[in-house]
């Protein structure tokens, strides 16, 4: 009985297929929902704005994908039209190469809006011995090879006091993000490269690439543990394990867990909100969103979305993004961001 009327079944199938194609066609023509892709670091903030925007305006809630900064900008730069995203989240500035690829695909006018800062913190469970670290000490503890008496040798340090006698005799054990995460990129750039910059043996290296390898290669003898893409796992490990384990993750996770964890001062600067905002804390970066100007007026609500994002109730010191761990811009910079969102002045090629 299953296939008693195969002809009728076939006709129904064809009809269903045709209907689907038609509705697909209609779908591709118009999109009434903003689509956003990009950095997982910016994701919590953009989603918060998206939710607020969806609830407080007649527009539909934007769809936000967490693809990583690089992947997001690639999607963003793929072209103009409803099948391409309207906004890209980035935890770093767009590179000149990315900008060029955007231009080649017809995405010529892009508005760049800075939204705030993110800090990378080095934290431990509360109640252990308190000591600050410098970026150079962090690098010495983590590098695969370190210079000793002018010779590059495999990292021999097992305890912090071997690096600097003023540090306690505690075993080096650090848990941090894996190489696939954006936090790791920034950690490499800001903490490790920043830390090895003043080491004379590193300064003697003239080849920029070799210097980067020397600075950013992390030891693989078990002293550094990759904690997984999810910063929460690192937080949970830190909170439950014995003292001595040191974790590396984004500031917002420290901010949410101050009852269990405490941040270590880096180069003598505590990882506090104020220090990251003022730029005194050395391991912090800016975050941006990029808007495709050609989509304004085609996809409904883009202008209003940017207005919400740059409004005082979102990105000021008392705004709702700050309660989620965003380190907000200074008032003048916020004013500039608002102006950029209002004028949609296209950015020039970065770095020129």
């Amino acid at each position, binding site marked *: 009985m*299953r*296939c*008693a009327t195969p002809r009728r079944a076939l006709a129904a199938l064809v009809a269903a297929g045709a209907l*689907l194609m038609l*509705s*697909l066609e209609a*779908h*591709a023509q118009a*999109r009434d*929902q903003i*689509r956003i892709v990009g950095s*997982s670091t910016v*994701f*919590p903030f953009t*989603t*918060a704005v*998206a*939710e607020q925007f*969806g*609830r407080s305006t007649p527009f*539909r*809630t934007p*769809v*936000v*994908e*967490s693809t990583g900064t690089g992947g997001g900008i690639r999607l963003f730069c793929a072209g103009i039209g409803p*099948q391409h995203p309207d906004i890209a989240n980035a935890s770093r500035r767009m590179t000149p190469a990315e900008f060029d690829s955007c231009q080649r695909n017809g995405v010529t006018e892009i508005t760049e809006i800075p939204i705030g800062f993110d800090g990378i913190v080095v934290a431990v469970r*509360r109640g252990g011995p308190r000591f600050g670290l410098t970026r150079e000490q962090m690098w010495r503890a983590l590098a695969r090879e370190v210079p000793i008496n002018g010779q590059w040798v495999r990292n021999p340090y097992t305890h912090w006091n071997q690096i600097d006698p003023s540090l306690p005799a505690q075993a080096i054990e650090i848990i941090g993000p894996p190489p696939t995460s954006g936090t790791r990129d920034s950690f490499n750039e800001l903490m490790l490269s920043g830390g090895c910059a003043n080491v004379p043996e590193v300064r003697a290296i003239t080849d920029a690439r070799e210097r980067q390898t020397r600075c950013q290669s992390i030891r693989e003898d078990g002293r550094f543990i990759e904690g997984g*893409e*999810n*910063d*929460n796992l690192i937080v949970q490990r830190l909170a439950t394990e014995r003292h001595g384990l040191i974790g590396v993750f*984004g500031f*917002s*996770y420290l*901010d*949410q*867990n*101050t*009852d*269990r964890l*405490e941040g270590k001062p880096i180069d003598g600067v505590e990882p506090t909100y104020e220090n990251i905002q003022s730029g005194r804390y050395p391991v912090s970066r800016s975050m941006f969103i990029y808007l495709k100007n050609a989509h304004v007026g085609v996809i409904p609500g883009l202008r209003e979305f940017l207005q919400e994002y740059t409004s005082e109730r979102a990105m000021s010191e*008392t705004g709702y993004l700050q309660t*989620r*761990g965003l380190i907000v811009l200074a008032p003048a910079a916020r004013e500039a961001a608002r102006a950029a969102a209002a004028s949609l002045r296209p950015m020039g090629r970065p770095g020129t």
Partner: protein
Amino acid sequence: MTDAAALTPPAARPAGVPLSPHLSPRIAARRRGRHRAEMRFRLYGLAALSLCALALIVLLASLVWSGLSAFWQTHLRLEVEISTRHVDPTRPQAGDYGGMLRAALEARFPEVTSRADRRRLHALLSSGAEEDLRRMVTADPSLIGTRQRLWLLAGTDVDMAVKTGLSRVAQQIKEGAGVRLSERQLEWLERLSREGDLALRWNSRFFTAGDSRDPERVGVLGGLVGSLLTLLVCLALALPVGVAAAVYLEEFAPRNRFTALIEVNIANLAAVPSIVFGLLGLAVFLNAFGMPRSAPLVGGAVLALLSLPIIIIAARAALRAVPPSVREAALSLGASRMQVVTHHVLPLAMPGILTGTILALANALGETAPLLMIGMVAFIVDIPRDILSPATVLPVQIYMWASGAERGFVEKTAAGIMVLLAFMLSMNAAAILMRRRVERRW
């Protein structure tokens, strides 16, 4: 291993006593050795089984332990004046419900006057409370002008403090640990609690809402509906195609090099990592066909590709298990090849095919990797309405909560996993019932 010998059923005898006079001592010793080996073998099996059971129990216990509290959410009871000052009776939708709630909080704690303290006071309530009130008044505008005692959703920091225990939080504050609530806020909460206006109430929102950035407002419905739509598309595509392919290969195809090659390829496809299917979906469905990103249609199509090999393999095994005598009998009575298949072989093979399909679908339900490529790993608040609207699936929803920084997401993650397990169980139960109905004996 002496006790093992003692445990051995009747065969065990005190050492040295022959079983029968015909057994030489050497043979008897070997026999005892074989019995002991068998005993050990059984123990290994039992140990393996208990290990699995233990792992399952630990998993379920830890889930329930950390997730059960998510089904209850902290609420505050306040007397709210729904005054015309805040809302225009002709347009209840546009009222200032936030202002109304702030006024209610300040009326409850009239001694709070400083700006900073008032902000702390307002932070006790979730932004969801405002929306609930808006919905309530919009549905029933006659409430305007009345005073209502309402249970209102508390913010996640309050919720976490209540679930930790207010006295423990007070202790933490005293020890100088950074707590997300201030001492004043804790005082207010303690007062509310003493007066019976602070309670954990059943969190029905968890089953009726979509995603949110606030852990106290999240719900699984978006992911649940998304999973359902995606699986329906997957089933609609994979089952007919899979069965047709299996029937052709098993009943009609000639046995030659070419079909052998196809068979090997199908078996290989079943072992291909799922992310590869995601890349395929990105290249074919999105880039070549121009289908929308994040749509259950595309997700279902990708998962159908993923489950096809499993369904084909299971369906072929089920078809092969139908005895040839059934086919021969039908053919000898003059049935055509198609009639043999549709009237006799397929109905008999159906239970086996369904079992394979259930396994394949259960597998597909847990997939996230292929969906990443086609944009289904996304923050989507609206509940999907059809197979073209943006959607996400349950495992993705769980993954995204697991990466949320707010502490409240920890319990929501575990609760989401419980819902996923329940969904999978009910899906399997339904399939087993269906299989029972089509099962036939021969």
